[in-house]
């Protein structure tokens, strides 16, 4: 046995390792495949051995071969074996291989569940890490369901390395197992404020990915992200958050308003291009979302466009590209500001970089006008000729069509030019967009009546020129244009010069090589032509010629009857019979032309593509119901050739929509008129003389003149679009001349009758009139079309499953599946708690019932508040006059302390039922409080005024324990005035920081009250022995700390300063100065403002929830000193009183019975402060216990002051 092992390990030395394999492959360049298959055989041998090192080596080699394109899924089981090796080295090899080749279809993957669970809970962080990394690549719905709970536990692992990986992988788990999102979300949210930047970044990453798909569910997180954005220094995180805001703003325009300022500050201050670019991008998104509502953000737009111009002009091609990309977003809503940079865009069209050219093309769309369309398209046409590679050429083609056809051919002044451009485009080889060109041809020919003659002549030439058909470009799709050509020639055959010639062209034998649907159109239109020719001949009494045409048809049609395409075949046989019948009649000298023509009588009107869809289904009509009982499915349905053109409608089947009532019709007609009035191409039925008058006098607004003869209707041969450019120049020139003439002989105006474009008034600065007009026929939309139709979301979208409301409180049933057995008698306090709670106690079952009810009520209440919360945070200017109780926003904000008070007890219930779930839930609530406070801060100013308003007379009736009285709380603000002068007003608030035990953060709100621009603000304080301002490294104690922003007039912003405090048991004051430069039109002055910062003892307390069991234990422990105060003459209700204490003194309610409550708070240095508040008739007594007596007496003193005001 031992010998065997030794032998095995010696053998192993001579096994090929990965390096040998790589070297071997390099040495066998000639017969690589053979060599590798040899190696794979060896690997198969190695995998059969027992030695795990040999197996690992084999798997390692397989991983490499996988990268070279070899399938290694056959070794899946061996990979699992290596994954379960005890050594990290092998484990890592196994997981790497698994992450490369495992996927949902791998059947052995279900064997890994327990192994992965074991690795996740391994004591070695790298075992856990490698398992998480591997799992992130191959997680399946089953694995996600089974492991979600384990991963969630890891989110609170002590090592940040594991935490960040666990947080990140949760996204994959959510994707595969959407049910886990709600239970896990609270903890994920908590991780947004993790002390480790890596974990924080991971959490931001995950939430951003989630929010990108379903932004509306994450709107409520906006305040939290806002705080992160203003505090984070990690650019990667900032970029993610800013991108997220870009996704959120379209849903909530008020958010945008709030964002503009900090983003603008960032744009000014950051040196990182990536951050700058994302800021600009989000500002653009904000501006787009605001574009309708907000009147004036031109400064921001200008800023963005300016910055983008700088990017585009940069020599770095990357910045240039991104600049163009962002520019195109502005273009959609603010085309004017982009148009100013046309020069730049046109310049980029010539860039050597294709990516940049493509982006510039996008921008062109918004740059064209009547004046420059021809010029720009001409430029694009030369690019088309030069372009290598079909992708770019196709892109150019679609862009040309897009540009020309935008908003009903708004910019086209000469349709003959456009038709010839289209015809030129048909000469492109290998394009995929034949159908696009065809659709344009049809559209123009149908809707621009004046162009039909010209279009028909071009199309017949197209049919005639065999190059399209001959070169068998079937695959490339360009032959689609023949569809259009045939149809146009047939439909408008009266315009044909040589119908006979076209007819012959359409009956050539080569036609049968075309795709079926085109043949079908050919057949149909051959008859139309035939009808036209017959009529012509009969009128000329040329029976001989008429019979010859019939004979031609009878001879040629059979080639279509043999067509493989069903549609073509069917039509051809019908028509063949028809023609034969006609032939018989002709033989008897019966005139038939009238009757044949009658087949195609009537005008064809265009129908909008969505017209049919928009007709509402009349009541009582069930389109899904069977008309007849379905037959057995023995006959398979033949697939119909797909109709590519929407206006391919049976001729007489004019849409007769169900009758709508008179009123409705009138309303719609009105709306349509309105629309038409705004459409410069629509011919108004009776142009008012006033209108004409308005048009006439302006130099730039000269009415349109007769231009019938300005464009020759026939250009010999294939027209070159360039000719039209020239002609157009001439035409415009003539128009200008005409105009001048007009000025001189104004009176002649009246005599000019039959003006074709009399009603056409140009709204823009351009005074070029189109040579032809687009007719938008009223019938394009059915009478009672619905205003818009929503396109349904793709039901297969994998992210749809994650569209889950996260604000709803968790139901008890919602928890992650847990595999292990659990003890029903778990402890009341959660195992892991931020608070220094002293221990666990057995639960008190008698209170369970009652609390359950409370919890329910609380839940309902919270749900209602949720919406109001965000509203409040977002509403920067609530009407000041509104009395506080009616203001829902204020209510919501003040509800925070109230909620705190209810929470711990509600929580206990959870704890009793499921410790695990409690764990997730509690911290999140804790955080919610925090961010509510945050909201409070941000809306400080309004609330300030409200605070002074007398609180409502308290309804003194005693409140039942835990019952939520609906009494509104007065608004409160923790901000107090620091100093004020004519330039600036400073208010401040001090907040303790639990994470750093001797630091407090002072948030100072600076409000510019002057009309000057305040900059170079610097705050300095005279440090005391006990308190020091934290200054940037390297600066002396006399240096100030710069304020990181500037203040335009009327603007306020908040700056935060950190102070280090030695002893927190007494209050103290620090003297300080704010120096700044005030700049206005007259110049700039140095200004100073002195202030005194007051650090109360209260400000060292941090709101910390505490459970009643822990609280009791704390009191029992007996190492707390005691003190008490009593305040008389208090009229406020107990409820409000508690809320006030909670809010101003950072306490949380532990328990409340009637008019007696116990409260808890904790100092930043870990002192416990416990209070018992009792309300008497008109007085309140507060008994306190604290680990430091000085601190306690000071806190109580301060509290007394607060209460005295009540």
């Amino acid at each position, binding site marked *: 046995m031992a010998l065997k092992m030794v032998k095995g390990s010696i053998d192993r030395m001579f096994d090929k*390792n990965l390096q040998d394999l790589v070297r071997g492959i390099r040495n066998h360049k000639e017969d690589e495949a053979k060599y590798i298959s040899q190696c794979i055989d060896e690997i198969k041998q190695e995998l059969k051995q027992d030695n795990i090192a040999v197996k690992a080596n084999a798997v390692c080699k397989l991983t490499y071969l996988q*990268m070279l394109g070899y399938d290694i899924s056959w070794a899946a089981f061996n990979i699992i074996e290596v994954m379960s090796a005890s050594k990290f080295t092998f484990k890592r090899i196994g997981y790497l291989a698994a992450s490369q080749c495992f996927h949902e279809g791998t059947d052995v993957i279900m064997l890994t569940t327990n192994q992965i669970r074991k690795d996740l809970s391994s004591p070695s962080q790298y075992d856990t890490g490698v398992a998480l990394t591997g799992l992130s690549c191959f997680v399946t719905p089953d694995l996600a369901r089974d492991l979600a709970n384990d991963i969630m536990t890891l989110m609170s692992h002590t090592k940040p390395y594991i935490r960040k990986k666990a947080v990140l*992988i949760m996204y994959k788990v959510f994707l595969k197992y959407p049910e886990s999102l709600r239970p896990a979300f609270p903890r994920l949210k908590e991780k947004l404020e993790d002390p480790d930047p890596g974990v924080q*970044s991971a959490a931001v990453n995950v939430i951003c990915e989630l929010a990108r798909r379903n932004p509306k569910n994450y709107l409520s997180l906006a305040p939290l992200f806002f705080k992160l954005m203003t505090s984070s220094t990690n650019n990667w995180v900032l970029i993610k958050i800013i991108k997220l805001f870009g996704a959120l703003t379209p849903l909530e325009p008020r958010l945008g308003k709030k964002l503009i300022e900090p983003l603008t500050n960032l744009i000014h201050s950051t040196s990182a291009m*990536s951050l700058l670019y994302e800021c600009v991008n989000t500002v653009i998104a904000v501006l787009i979302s605001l574009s309708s509502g907000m009147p004036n953000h031109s400064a921001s737009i200008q800023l963005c466009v300016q910055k983008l111009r700088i990017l585009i002009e940069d020599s770095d091609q990357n910045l240039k590209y991104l600049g163009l990309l962002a520019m195109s977003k502005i273009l959609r809503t603010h085309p004017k500001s982009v148009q100013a940079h046309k020069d730049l865009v046109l310049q980029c069209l010539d860039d050597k970089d294709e990516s940049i050219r493509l982006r510039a093309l996008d921008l062109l769309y918004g740059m064209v006008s009547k004046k420059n369309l021809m010029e720009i398209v001409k430029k694009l046409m030369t690019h088309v000729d030069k372009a290598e590679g079909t992708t770019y050429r196709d892109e150019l083609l679609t862009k040309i069509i897009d540009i020309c056809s935008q908003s009903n051919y708004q910019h086209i002044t000469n349709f003959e030019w456009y038709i010839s451009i289209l015809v030129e485009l048909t000469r492109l080889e290998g394009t995929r967009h034949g159908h696009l060109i065809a659709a344009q041809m049809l559209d123009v020919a149908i809707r621009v009546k004046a162009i039909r003659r010209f279009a028909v002549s071009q199309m017949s030439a197209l049919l005639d020129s065999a190059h399209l058909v001959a070169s068998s470009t079937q695959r490339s799709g360009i032959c689609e244009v023949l569809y259009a050509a045939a149809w146009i020639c047939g439909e408008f055959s009266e315009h044909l010069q040589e119908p006979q010639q076209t007819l012959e062209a359409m009956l050539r034998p080569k036609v049968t090589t075309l795709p079926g649907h085109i043949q079908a159109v050919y057949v149909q239109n051959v008859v139309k032509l035939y009808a036209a020719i017959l009529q012509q001949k009969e009128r000329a009494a040329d029976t001989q010629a008429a019979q010859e045409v019939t004979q031609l048809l009878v001879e040629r049609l059979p080639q279509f009857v043999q067509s493989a395409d069903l549609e073509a075949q069917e039509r051809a046989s019908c028509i063949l019979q028809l023609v034969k019948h006609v032939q018989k009649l002709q033989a008897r000298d019966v005139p038939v032309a009238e009757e044949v023509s009658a087949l195609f009588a009537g005008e064809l009107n265009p129908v909008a593509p969505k017209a049919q869809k928009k007709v509402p289904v009349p009541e009582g009509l069930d389109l899904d119901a069977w008309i007849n009982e379905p037959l057995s499915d023995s006959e398979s349905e033949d697939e119909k050739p797909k109709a590519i053109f929407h206006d391919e409608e049976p001729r007489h089947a004019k849409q007769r929509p169900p009758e709508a009532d008179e009123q409705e019709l009138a309303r719609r007609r009105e709306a349509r008129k309105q629309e038409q009035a705004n459409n410069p191409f629509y011919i108004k039925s009776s142009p008012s003389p006033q209108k004409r008058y308005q048009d006439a006098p302006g130099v730039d607004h000269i009415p349109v003149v007769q231009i019938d003869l300005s464009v020759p209707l026939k250009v010999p041969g294939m027209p070159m679009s360039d000719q039209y450019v020239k002609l157009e120049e001439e035409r415009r020139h003539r128009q200008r001349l005409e105009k001048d003439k007009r000025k001189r002989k104004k009176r002649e105006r009246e005599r000019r009758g039959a003006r074709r474009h009399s009603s056409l008034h140009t709204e823009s600065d351009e005074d070029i009139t189109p040579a032809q007009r687009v007719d938008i026929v009223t019938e394009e939309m059915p009478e009672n079309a619905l205003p818009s139709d929503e396109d349904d979301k793709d039901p297969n979208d994998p992210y749809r499953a994650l569209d889950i409301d996260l604000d709803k409180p968790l139901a008890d049933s919602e928890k992650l599946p847990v595999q292990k057995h659990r003890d029903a008698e778990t402890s009341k306090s959660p195992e892991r708690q931020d608070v220094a709670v002293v221990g666990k106690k057995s639960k008190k079952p008698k209170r369970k019932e009652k609390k359950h009810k409370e919890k329910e009520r609380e839940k309902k209440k919270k749900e209602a508040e949720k919406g109001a919360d965000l509203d409040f945070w977002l509403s920067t200017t609530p009407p000041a006059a509104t009395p506080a109780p009616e203001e829902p926003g204020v209510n919501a904000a003040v509800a925070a302390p109230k909620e705190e008070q209810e929470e711990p007890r509600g929580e206990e219930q959870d704890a009793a039922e499921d410790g695990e779930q409690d764990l997730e839930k509690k911290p999140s609530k804790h955080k919610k409080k925090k961010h509510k406070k945050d909201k409070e801060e941000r809306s400080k100013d309004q609330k300030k005024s409200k605070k002074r308003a007398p609180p409502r007379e308290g309804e003194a009736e005693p409140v039942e324990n835990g019952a939520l009285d609906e009494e509104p709380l007065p608004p409160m603000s923790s901000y107090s005035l620091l100093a004020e002068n004519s330039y600036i007003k400073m208010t401040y608030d001090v907040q303790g920081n639990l994470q750093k035990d001797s630091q407090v953060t002072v948030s100072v709100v600076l409000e510019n009250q002057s009309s000057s621009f305040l900059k170079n603000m610097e705050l300095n304080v005279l440090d005391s022995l006990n308190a020091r301002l934290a200054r940037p490294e390297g600066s002396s104690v006399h240096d100030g700390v710069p304020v990181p922003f500037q203040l335009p007039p009327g603007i306020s912003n908040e700056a935060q300063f950190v102070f280090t405090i030695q002893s927190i048991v007494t209050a103290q004051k620090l003297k300080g100065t704010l120096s700044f430069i005030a700049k206005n039109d007259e110049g700039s002055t140095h200004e100073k403002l002195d202030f005194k910062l007051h650090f109360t003892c209260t400000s060292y307390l941090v709101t910390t929830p505490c459970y009643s069991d822990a609280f009791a234990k704390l009191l029992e422990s007996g190492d707390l000193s005691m003190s008490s105060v009593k305040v008389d003459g208090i009229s406020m209700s107990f409820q409000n009183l508690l809320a006030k204490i909670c809010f101003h003194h950072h306490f949380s309610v532990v328990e409340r019975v009637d008019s007696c409550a116990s409260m808890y708070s904790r100092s930043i240095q870990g002192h416990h402060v416990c209070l018992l508040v009792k309300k008497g008739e008109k007085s309140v007594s507060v008994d306190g216990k604290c680990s430091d007596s000085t601190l306690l007496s000071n806190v109580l003193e301060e509290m007394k002051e607060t209460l005295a005001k009540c």
Partner: protein
Amino acid sequence: MIKAILIFNNHGKPRLSMFYQPYSEDTQWQIIRETFHLVSKRDENVCNFLEGGLLIGESDNKLIYRHYATLYFVFCVDSSESELGILDLIQVFVETLDKCFENVCELDLIFHVDKVPNILAEMVMGGMVLETNMNEIVTQIDAQNKLEKSEAALAGAPARAVSAVKNMNLPEIPRNINIGDISIKVPNLPSFK
């Protein structure tokens, strides 16, 4: 999300491929080929973004790449990633490789093809960016290497001796990438530190 990370040389030979969406080996191979064709025909002084990697699904995907001496580093990402951010990330990746292999060159990637994914795993996990701080990344990699060494201390000795012998007849490995003097403009690298 990052959809795929590819490294290949000037001739299209893959040196690393990580796909964060499942594809069959054939498709993976095709994607690498196609990406190489797209990227390699671009000049040096054009932008580092490319649209329309046709094979990798959705339309909002972009290829973001950098070219260092003989190697292309290509990231295929969707619209949730910041373009410039990813460029920085590639730079961090390359600098990390440089630290781990001491003056990295293509041969390091060829002969340590098993190590590169492990380094990458400390930066990107399942297509999501895990860490951007180079020091943190290097610390974790070093710690794992140490762990690996300690495991191999006893059992690995003979194998290492053999591989040393095998390596003896390798010609002097030409160091052909020098990250130090590559003058690709990094707009904002310091921001990650």
